[in-house]
């Protein structure tokens, strides 16, 4: 069985996906099958990037898609595209899994964090190597070093901004603003409008 990889961004998946979600909310399994074909690749790719463990990633991706089925009625077009809604759910779930898997106590958590320290350069490289969209890669390169590290560690690794600050040894306030101005620069570079 062949399946297409979906690499279209949220902009290209506008009204169709939204209509399909409306049908899904009314229990239409065929519509859900089409939703899966459109978003499945991005959902699994994102979850796998954050979690890295393939088996756990498939499990979480299944949970995300199941949540899309169950709560399709909760989607509000006024808050953004259907694609963005689904990918936000996926990121939320992946991040929750990463944080619950991490050590329960602060000390262990800190140790786990420090263990990851050398990872961030490598992280950015791996992620960039897998980027299928030239445009996203180009726009990431257009960020300052600190913006790029902050955004990729938070998004692709699921780190909280306090952890990003600790890892990069910069003040909390700096990370907060870098996450925001980094994303704003990406938004402008990618021409995202909603």
């Amino acid at each position, binding site marked *: 069985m062949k399946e297409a990889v979906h690499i279209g961004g949220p902009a290209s998946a506008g009204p169709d996906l939204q209509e399909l979600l409306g049908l899904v909310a009314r229990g239409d399994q065929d519509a*859900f099958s089409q939703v899966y074909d459109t978003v499945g690749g991005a959902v699994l790719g994102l979850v796998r990037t954050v979690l890295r463990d393939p088996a756990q990633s498939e499990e979480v991706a299944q949970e995300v898609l199941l949540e899309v089925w169950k709560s399709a009625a909760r989607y509000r077009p006024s808050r953004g595209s259907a694609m963005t809604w689904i990918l936000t759910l996926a*990121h939320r779930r992946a991040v929750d899994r990463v944080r619950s898997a991490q050590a329960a106590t602060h000390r262990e958590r800190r140790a786990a964090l420090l263990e990851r320290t050398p990872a961030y350069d490598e992280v950015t490289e791996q992620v960039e190597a897998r980027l299928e969209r030239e445009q996203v890669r180009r726009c990431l390169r257009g960020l300052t070093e600190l913006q790029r590290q902050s955004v990729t560690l938070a998004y692709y690794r699921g780190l909280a901004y306090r952890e990003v600050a600790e890892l990069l040894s910069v003040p909390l306030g700096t990370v907060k603003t870098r996450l*925001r101005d980094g994303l704003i620069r990406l*938004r402008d570079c990618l021409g995202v409008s909603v």
Partner: protein
Amino acid sequence: MNTGDLHLLTGAYVLHALSPEEHAEFERHLPGCPSCSQEVRELAATAGRLASAVAVTPPAALKLQVMARISAERQEPPQIPRQSRRGGSRAGRALSRFALAASVAAAAAFGGVALWQHQEARDARDVAERAQTRAEELAGVLAAPDATVTSGRLTDGATGTVVVSRGRDEAAFLVSGLPEPPAGKVYQLWFADGDVMRPAGLMDPSDSTSAMLMDGPVDGASGMGITVEPAGGSAQPTSEPLALMKLPV
């Protein structure tokens, strides 16, 4: 935290990088801050682009598993937008009080009616529960660690997929694009033990895209087939199979 500081959290918020307390605080702030809401919409869409950039081709089995699980999962009912909810529920309460009064009056007038309705409702629930159990079993086969997936093309361009778990001794059959069977006919599934065909269940004729648990244990079956049979099914195939598939060992 003052409002200016909160506005700076849009980026960390869409990246799920805030602490639970800050996340909650920001969400309280959001409805009253149109410019924050707009920025959140834009930055969330931007983050979505980062996700699309790392898309992969999911394994075929993932879709089968997800499709099987959704058929066993109840959906949330549609939500009424918050502003009209209060009025809506008041109308609902008034209506149900009216309906209750009406049914009490009807029961007084027609005796057994209320009881019969109750019985019917319970039957429907039993049917739903049976379907639910069956769907869960189906999901179990599809999610089994030893599940193997074989796909084949049926006549008329339909696609059939059989998923076998030797560990559970169960198999599932999924089909898409199958035309409705001719009037008075039904699609029947078979396990093949060498040359001997053993009945493995009838497909729901009203459902052209479906997944079903095959009846009976897989045992040593070497293959499976699908034929068109008279309604009610047959003990032995009476027509040429639409497809025969080998089962993985």
